[in-house]
Structures are given as C-alpha cells and as structure tokens.
C-alpha cells in the first residue's frame, strides 16, 4: 500500500535530507566501509593499488597457538637448570623462525605457563592486539560493576530530602561536564611519580612511610589508575540515570515496606532494586559501551604504555589506522570490536530480559 510518506512528501524528505545525509556520511558509510576495508590491504597513503586479501587481516590479528617446550637436557638426559634451579628452555624463536614449522611463522610469545617440566607458551601473531583485547575486557569487567554500583550508591545517598542536597548532586555531577581530555591531563598531575598529588597525599597520611609510586609508569598500576580515574569521571552521569529511576518508584511502596517492618536492606531488596530493573539494564549497557570505547584517557595519559600494559582496542585501531597508516588493520580491529560489543549487548539483553 502506497502511503502518503512515499508518494507525495517531497518537502518532508527534503527537510530530512541534511540530517539523513550527515548520518549516512559519518556513520552508515564508514560502518560498512570498515567491513569492506578489513578485507583488503588498503593503506592510508600508498603507491600500490589496493588488493582484496580475504580474511588475511583477521588471521594475522587473531591467530593463536600453544607451543609445548621441553626443557633443555644435557648428555645424561638431566634437565639443565640455572642457579635458581628453574629448568632452561629453548628460545621460542627456535620454533617461530624454524622453516620446519611454517604455521608459527611471525608469531611471538604472549604468555606461558608450566605443566610438569614442560613449558606451554601461547604465541600470537599480534601480541599487542591480544594485550589490548585483554586490557579492554579487564577495563569493562571492572568498570561495569564498579561504576554502576558506585553510581547507585551515590544516587541512593542523594535521593533524600536534606538541606543542601543539591550541593552534593552538583559536586558528584561536575566531572561529567568537564572534557575528558582536561580530566585526563589533570589526573596525569595527580598520578605524577615525583611530586603528584596522590603520592603527597598518601605520604602525608602515613607520616612519610609511603614510598612514592609512579602510578602511570608501572605495568602493575597503570591500568588500575586509569580505571579509578575513569570511574570517578563518569560516575555522576550514571548517578543521574539511577536517580531518575529511583524517583519513578511509588512512595506508597516504601510505606508498605515500612508498615511491614522491612529493614533497610529488605526495602532495597524487595522495593528499590526490582523497581530499578529497566534502569539497571540501561546503565549496564551504556557503561559497557563506553568502556569498550576507551581511548582519550589512554591517548592523553599513557599512550598505551608502559610495555603495552594500557593498550586498548580503540587506541590500537586509531594507532594502526593513522599512526601506522594501516587502514585495513585499523578497520579489522574496529570490526572485531563491533562484533564483541554486539555480542555482549545481546547477551546482556538476554540475561536481563523481562521474565513472565
């Protein structure tokens, strides 16, 4: 059936055109372009013509293998050990560069573990990508419950009628309105290893016992520092969403709980939390999306370092596409990221669905 929309609404379409055109140009076209480019060897600037390479980019990005290394033995068949008594193993490159094992060519060690005397080495063709993947997942896994929970706690605190409660609402929300780049720069000073605010604060609180730490310069603290700062920055935003959800719960339900003598925890468990179902789904999905898009903090604070300990997928995609001018590589990461986020969203929606 021909509707009025499709037959005689030229003016309407004309009005929609600018917005629609921009959406196409900057969202729809790049989205499909990323898929297309990930199947080629396109570079940002290159004299060579672009070629279709199939799934080669995905292969070089995602290839993983486990190699079992047996310890070195001397003539008697005894295991060679170093001064600490740990067995010595042949170097991984004896395999990855061995023409007898073409399937491991170009791979590098990602991590290893020991089973018995043997060492099992996980090799990946793109170790940096793997680290970025793990970091991004860690970031999302910590930040989703951390930020969501803290935001809910703050929302519960400010959802009270107290004198001056708006001051607290403002304070908690303030970091949200500041640009993430500015926030990142400020936190670089806070985390500074020599004379940073955090180190000063900690040594002040412990009367000088605390040894200053270069928070962003150590592989074991860098990602944690960025997580803490990211939670602080966006917690106010999610607090407001929780607050909106809290205010949709009928006050009479709380009165029922009060008459029945429910404790604070029971009230939360039976009244507040079930009333926040839909809000919880929204907050969880939004936080997860934002977590996977982690870029600005990394770019400003650590550049992925030290030793790739703060690499993330988006940072790698940008780094590869524009830093290394490898557009097809960057596109491939983007597509992988898209698939991961899509899967997680679908799983979250399934797990938090309305059961009837």
């Amino acid at each position, binding site marked *: 059936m021909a509707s009025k929309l499709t037959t005689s609404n030229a003016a309407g379409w004309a009005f929609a055109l600018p917005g629609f055109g921009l959406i196409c140009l900057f969202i729809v076209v790049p989205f499909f372009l990323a898929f297309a480019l990930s199947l080629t060897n396109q570079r940002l600037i290159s004299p060579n013509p672009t070629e279709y390479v199939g799934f080669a980019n995905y292969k070089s990005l995602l290839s993983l293998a486990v190699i079992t290394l047996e310890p070195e033995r001397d003539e008697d068949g005894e295991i060679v050990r170093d001064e600490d008594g740990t067995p010595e193993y042949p170097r991984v490159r004896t395999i990855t560069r061995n023409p007898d094992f073409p399937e491991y060519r170009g791979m590098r060690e990602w991590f290893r573990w020991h089973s018995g005397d043997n060492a099992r080495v996980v090799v990946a063709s793109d170790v940096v990508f793997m680290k970025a993947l793990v970091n991004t997942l860690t970031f999302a896994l910590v930040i989703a419950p951390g930020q969501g929970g803290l935001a809910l706690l703050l929302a519960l605190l400010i959802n009270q009628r107290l004198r001056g409660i708006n001051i607290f609402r403002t304070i908690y929300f303030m970091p949200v309105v500041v640009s993430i780049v500015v926030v990142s720069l400020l936190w670089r000073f806070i985390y500074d290893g020599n004379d940073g605010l955090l180190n000063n604060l900690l040594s002040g609180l412990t009367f000088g016992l605390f040894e200053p730490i270069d928070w962003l310069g150590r592989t074991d603290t860098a990602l944690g520092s960025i997580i803490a700062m990211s939670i602080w920055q966006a917690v106010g935003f999610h607090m407001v969403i929780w607050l909106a959800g809290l205010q949709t719960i*009928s006050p*009479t*339900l709380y*009165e*029922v*709980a*009060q*008459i*029945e*003598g*429910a404790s604070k925890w*029971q009230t939360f468990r*039976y*009244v507040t939390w*079930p*009333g926040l*179902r839909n809000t919880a789904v929204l907050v969880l999905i939004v936080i997860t999306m934002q977590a996977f898009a982690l870029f600005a903090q990394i770019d400003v604070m650590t550049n992925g370092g030290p030793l790739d300990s703060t690499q993330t997928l988006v940072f790698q995609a940008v780094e590869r596409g524009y830093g290394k001018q490898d557009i097809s590589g960057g596109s491939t990461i983007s597509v992988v990221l898209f698939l991961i986020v899509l899967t997680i969203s679908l799983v979250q929606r399934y797990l938090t669905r309305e059961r*009837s």
Partner: protein
Amino acid sequence: MADVSLSQVRKSFGSAEVIKGVDIDISDGEFVVFVGPSGCGKSTLLRMIAGLEDITSGTLEIDGRVVNDVQPKDRGIAMVFQTYAIFPHMSVRENVAFGLTIAGVSRDEKERKVNEAARILQMEHLLDRRPSQLSGGQRQRVAIGRAIVRDPAVFLFDEPLSNLDAALRMDMRMEIGKLHNQLGATMIYVTHDQVEAMTLADKIVVLRDGVVQQIGAPMELYHKPANLFVAGFIGSPSMNFMDVEVLEAAGDGVTVKAPALDPVKLHVDEQTYAAHSKAKLGLRPQYLSVPDDASKGTLHGTVALVERLGTETVVNVELTRGGRIVAALSEDKPLDIGSEIALDFDPAKAHLFAEP
C-alpha cells in the same frame, strides 16, 4: 482485636497545623469512617494512626498502649492504600505473602496464611498471576489480602475504592462490609464518598480543616447534624439552607420567617434562640414535597432545572420571593422548566442552626 483512642492529637507541618486537637474513641471491632472534603486532614490522621506520620502532640493508644513512638510494624495495624501499592514484579501470591517474607516466616506457614486469605477474598484462582494481569478491583483485593495475612488488630483503609469505577466500587464496598463482619476486627476507613461512609460505618467522624465536626452513627449524623457543615456534607443532594429571622422563641418551639417563607413554627430540643436573632433553616431536598393543592404550600417559585433519575426527580426551583431551593421528589415527575411550582415541608423534619 483492639480499641483505638486518640486524645488531643495534633499534627503540624512546619508552621501549618493540619490536625488541630482530635479526640476520637474507637471501640474494639467497630467500623469507623473518617469523612470530609479534600484537605480536611482525614488521610493524615489515618497515616498518624499507621505510624507513617509523626504525632506532633497528644496521645494515640491502640489496645490500651500508647503507641506514639512505636514502629508501624509493632502497632498491630495493616493498611490498604488508594493506589493499591502492590509490587508489579511479584506474583499475587508473593504480594500477599510480602509481610510474612519480611518477617521471615516459614514456607509452610506462609502457604497456609496466603491460602486462607485467598479463600476469604475468593481469589484462589488469581494467586499465580502478575499484577499487570489483574483488574483494578482484583488488585485492591490483593492489597486487602496482604493486610489480612498480617492478622492485624486494626485495619486501616485509605480511600481504597477511589480508583475503581462505580459498579466495581459498589461490589468492593459490600465485600469490605462482609469482611468486617467475618473478621470482626477494628476497621478505620477514610473516604470522601459519603455513600461509602453511610453504608459501611458503625460510626462516622466528620472532619473539616483538622477539626472533628461530629462523631456519630450514620443516621444520627443524617437526622441530627451538629452544625451547618455536617448538615451540608451528609446527604445528597445536599441540604438547602435559608437565612431566617427568629420571630418568637418560647418553650420548645421557635417561629421563624424569611422573605421567601411565611412564618413557620419549628420544634427544637434545646432553646438557644432569642427573638429577632438570625438563624439558618435547613431543609433536606428529600423532605420537600409538592402539595396536592398548588395554592397551599409554604414555598412558591418556578422550575429552573429538572433532573429525572427515574427513582426521584431533582428540581431546582427559583423562589418567587428570592433565593433558590433544590427538591428531590420521590417519584418520576415530568415538570416543565419555567412552570409554577409550590413546595411544602414538614416542620418536624426541618433543621434550625444558630448563626455562627
């Protein structure tokens, strides 16, 4: 089972006093209705009995115990709200059992009490449904069920039928009446609907601006209203008032006259009127009749408006000598607008109120 007694109970919100010294004695098993116009404080008073609002001053006793500072759950009350206040995420069974869940009652005990309540309210077939699958009347039944399982000494109803349509309201009204007979518990019921008040109550408390106007049995209020407010509030259509002048006051009789009314002698219980003072004459529309002989009758006028309801005819009469009066004639009487009409009344059924 318990009696409830309020003495000099007051409530202030900031500087605004909404309950101004209320004394009410409710005996065990009585059905008491608080009635009054919006904002008269009847709901606030009920919430104070429930423990949802603090008592600013005065004492509230339930079962001989002062409960001003006792938690709602320890007062032996259960409350049913206008908005039902049932939990959308719980089944009917879980809703009814809510108080037991909070109290940590065993599964068997819970099952037994819920089934008992469901049997009383004839809603066994609804137990596994969700609130969204229920009609308004059924939801209110669930809310009443939740009150029953608490086995309270005092039931509190806060306008429980106001969100229901007229037909359902009548059904539920009868149900609540039946429930009272069956359980024999003390019930306090707030409504602005005088039909509910008249039909359900053993005792009605009429409130206005936080002050008790009159306490008494429904028919006592109807036949012997203590003041102008009660007289005007109870009865539908409401009582006609006419400014009259007292001509003579002697013994138990008072002769009054008004521009529209020839002198008429009324009986009073207590002689408090002085000759030539002002007073108000109250005439219930139902007690006005059309005399057989149109030249007789004490009031004369023209018909301004006719509402034929089948069982009665409500006539709005423009009196010839000034003023208006409403008559509810007890049969279906076709009257032409603008036609002459004479009305008569039995002086024994007229009310006289001193000018305030």
